[in-house]
């Protein structure tokens, strides 16, 4: 009994008072655990980096990322049996289609696999794995305490925010990313618990790792030339974002065609990264140290070498993530963005050497914001992340400009962001309170009208006159009495000319006048597809069949009623 009460906190007197108290309390708990997961990943990455520091100078070091990626893939495929992928689309899919249900194993699987990939030198970031981990923690806490679907989605958001704010020590970015990317809904009911979780996650990180910002705060005096130059940088970062997205997609497709086991593919990809890293060591790992040098203006490489580094990092990231390594796109975006920003700065300084330019570190920051905003098509995340990880607001004006323009330009060429592309293609990107989401939440089974009068093909025309007199419908499914199969449909309009000729009543059989080419719906069809077919064929109702047997009818009128109810249900919470 006590166990049952304990597992159902929604019934506790205190929480029955206000649902938000429950969400805030559990949001804080989820935020703490997600923060711990993020700290664990951070520590393991540091340990791995120390472990491989000596190995990296050996001539055979290029195989290390290959071994790491292969182990990571084997761990995901054979040990935890969880398909590869960086995780964020899975979380969004779960929130979109299944009320945020995630497997418990996801709470730790990506932490281990990504530390193997990134720690061995793979070009990826720790953010997506902690997002997956945090989201799974939130989902399973909600499941354990029997929270409802809406509350569970909020907990998934709390886990995401807690993890992301802990890994970057950036609570606002955690909140904004969660709302923009994961939950997709700016409502007070979500924002409050997610904000609390974000604070909890960041605080855990500060307690265990100290209150450090990722990159040293430097003061930049941003003048008019820099503001104008930022517009050009935004366009360039957008172009680089589009290029990186296409690199990743192509790499993924090529890898899938390779006749190799999944772990071998990851090993090949990892070795390729190792080879690239042999020439350009800056592209290995998450690359925060390289970014730090660039922000501080301590990165001496010239313009052409910078361009090569941009390309090399894109290739390394594509080989890591596209070929089966585990990790996120955030950190590579930050590195490529800062390379791009620095390259752009050196280019404009070379053209207009007499202008009063701000320090090149500022352009590295703007480049990072441009890449993040372009790839994720989430401008707010790009802006707040850069502000928080650098600890200063001096660059806020060009940051907003670069993020906004980069997102817009990217959206023109890539309608869906890197995270959502596949989901959009499969029709599984369903945001709250949208038409697609409402339709996805209604099944054909809920709409079937069973009060239909069926007729048989051997009935005479005179028989159906009696049926019509008693019925309020103007269509009658023709059913095989032995098997229940739908054979055709009698529409009142089609037989109306014969109804006024009593001579035909005994001579015409229904099988002679029924329509046999009938569009049917299966019980498990997607409602959105059924509606498209109704529109294309100008139909207002269609028969529903299961294994060819007639089940009932579905009509637009019933759908409208149900749609309104579902919409009200989704918008009143």
């Amino acid at each position, binding site marked *: 009994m006590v166990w049952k009460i304990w597992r159902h906190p929604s019934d506790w007197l205190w929480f029955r008072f206000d649902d938000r108290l429950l969400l805030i309390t559990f949001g804080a708990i989820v935020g703490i655990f997600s923060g711990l997961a993020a700290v664990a990943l951070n520590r393991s990455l540091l340990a791995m980096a120390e472990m491989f520091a000596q190995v990296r100078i050996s001539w055979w070091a290029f195989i290390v990322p290959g071994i790491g990626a292969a182990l990571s893939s084997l761990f995901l495929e054979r040990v935890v049996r969880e*398909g590869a992928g960086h995780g964020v689309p*899975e979380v969004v899919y779960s929130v979109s289609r299944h009320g945020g249900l995630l497997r418990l194993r996801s709470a730790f699987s990506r932490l281990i696999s990504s530390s193997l990939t990134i720690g061995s030198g793979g070009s990826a970031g720790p953010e997506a794995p902690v997002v997956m981990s945090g989201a799974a923690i939130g989902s399973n806490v909600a499941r354990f305490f029997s929270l409802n679907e809406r509350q569970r989605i909020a907990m998934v958001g709390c886990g995401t925010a807690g993890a992301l704010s802990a890994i970057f020590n950036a609570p606002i970015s955690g909140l904004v990313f969660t709302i923009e990317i994961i939950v997709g809904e700016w409502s007070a009911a979500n924002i409050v618990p997610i904000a609390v979780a974000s604070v909890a996650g960041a605080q855990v990180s500060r307690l265990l790792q100290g209150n450090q910002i990722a990159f040293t705060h430097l003061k930049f005096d941003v003048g008019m030339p820099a503001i104008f130059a930022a517009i050009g940088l935004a366009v360039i970062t957008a172009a680089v974002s589009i290029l990186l997205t296409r690199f990743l997609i192509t790499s993924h497709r090529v890898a899938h065609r390779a006749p190799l086991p999944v772990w071998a593919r990851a090993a090949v990809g990892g070795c390729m990264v190792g080879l690239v890293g042999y020439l350009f060591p800056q592209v290995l790992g998450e690359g925060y140290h390289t970014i730090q040098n660039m922000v501080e203006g301590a990165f001496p490489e010239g313009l052409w070498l910078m361009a090569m580094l941009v390309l090399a990092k894109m290739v390394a990231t594509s080989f890591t993530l596209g070929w089966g390594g585990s990790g996120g796109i955030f950190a590579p975006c930050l590195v490529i963005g800062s390379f791009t920003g620095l390259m752009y700065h050196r280019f404009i300084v070379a053209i207009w050497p007499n202008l009063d330019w701000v320090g090149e570190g500022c352009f590295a920051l703007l480049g990072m914001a441009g890449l993040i905003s372009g790839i994720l098509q989430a401008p707010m995340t790009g802006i707040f992340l850069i502000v928080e990880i650098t600890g200063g607001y001096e660059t806020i004006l060009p940051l907003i400009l670069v993020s906004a323009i980069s997102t817009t330009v990217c959206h023109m060429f890539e309608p869906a962001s890197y995270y959502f592309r596949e989901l959009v293609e499969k029709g599984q990107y369903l945001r709250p309170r949208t038409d697609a989401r409402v339709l996805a939440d209604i099944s054909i089974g809920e709409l079937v009208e069973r009060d239909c009068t069926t007729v048989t093909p051997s009935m005479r025309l005179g028989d159906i006159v009696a049926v019509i007199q008693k019925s309020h419908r103007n269509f009658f499914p023709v059913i095989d009495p032995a098997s229940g199969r739908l054979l055709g449909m009698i529409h009142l309009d089609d037989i109306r000319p014969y109804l006024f000729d009593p001579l035909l009543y005994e001579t015409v059989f229904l099988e002679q006048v029924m329509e046999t080419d009938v569009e049917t719906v299966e019980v498990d069809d997607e409602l959105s597809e059924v509606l498209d077919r109704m529109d294309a064929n100008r139909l207002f109702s269609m028969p529903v069949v299961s294994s060819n047997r007639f089940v009932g009818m579905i009509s637009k009128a019933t759908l409208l009623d149900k749609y309104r109810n579902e919409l009200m249900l989704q918008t009143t919470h």
Partner: protein
Amino acid sequence: MEMQMLHVFRNTPHGRETLLQTAYFCKSAGISPVVYIPGHLKFLMYFDNDVVQVDLNPSYLRSPATARDHAADVFADLGLPPPKFIVPKHFTASALPDIPVDFDFMTCPHSISDLSARIGPGYVGPRVRRILQSARFPVLIPSAVYKPFNRIAVLFGDPANAVRAFRLGVRLGRLMEMPVTLFTRENRHGKTDYEGLLAKKGLSVDLEQSVTEWHVLPDHDFEDNLYRVPHDALVVLGAAGHGLIRSLLFGSIMEKIQTVLPNSLLIVGQNYRSV
């Protein structure tokens, strides 16, 4: 809406036996079979408050070219039309399909993740347990070899599940036109307690009309007395919903019954919602 039963088909002789049991069950109750021929070694089932990943034994992927025909042949042998084959529409990851869960029944072997030869009596795999805990539908655990049943035996034990199992047993008895026998374990609750429980739930009429016999088995040698359960009965019982750890520590009645009885078992989970 017609009732549907999900069966995950294994294209092996063992798999044929379980499919035959499903086909017989469907034929007896007038249920439409829905067969899933796996194309991947794992799939997900999203229930109301849980997501269960079912990791299949590799034998489930054997001979995919013949699987559909073999499945259809099994149904044809019992004079049934070919079943409906489901193809997953949604994928959580590229090799991780989502299988729908809106069925009325599901067939699961004792363990879905282990090779049949390794499954001993009295073992219910962790995936099957999770499905039982989360599903709204009852799960048929077929006997090792196909055997038609001619009666329904309801194990009317733990009051928490007794009513659910009773309702299902009576419902199936009517659908299949088979006699229903109750078996009660006499422990701290006696026959009169159970009669009171049924009366409280408004099931006295069902008890009178549908149940032909009621046996009360002594608690001290319960397992020995299970011999009285007819060999040709489909055994309906409720699962308490304990997790694997609790069952390992304290034992599971379900597994004890499964160890002793070779019959097909129809198990009602805690989330079963009777129609």
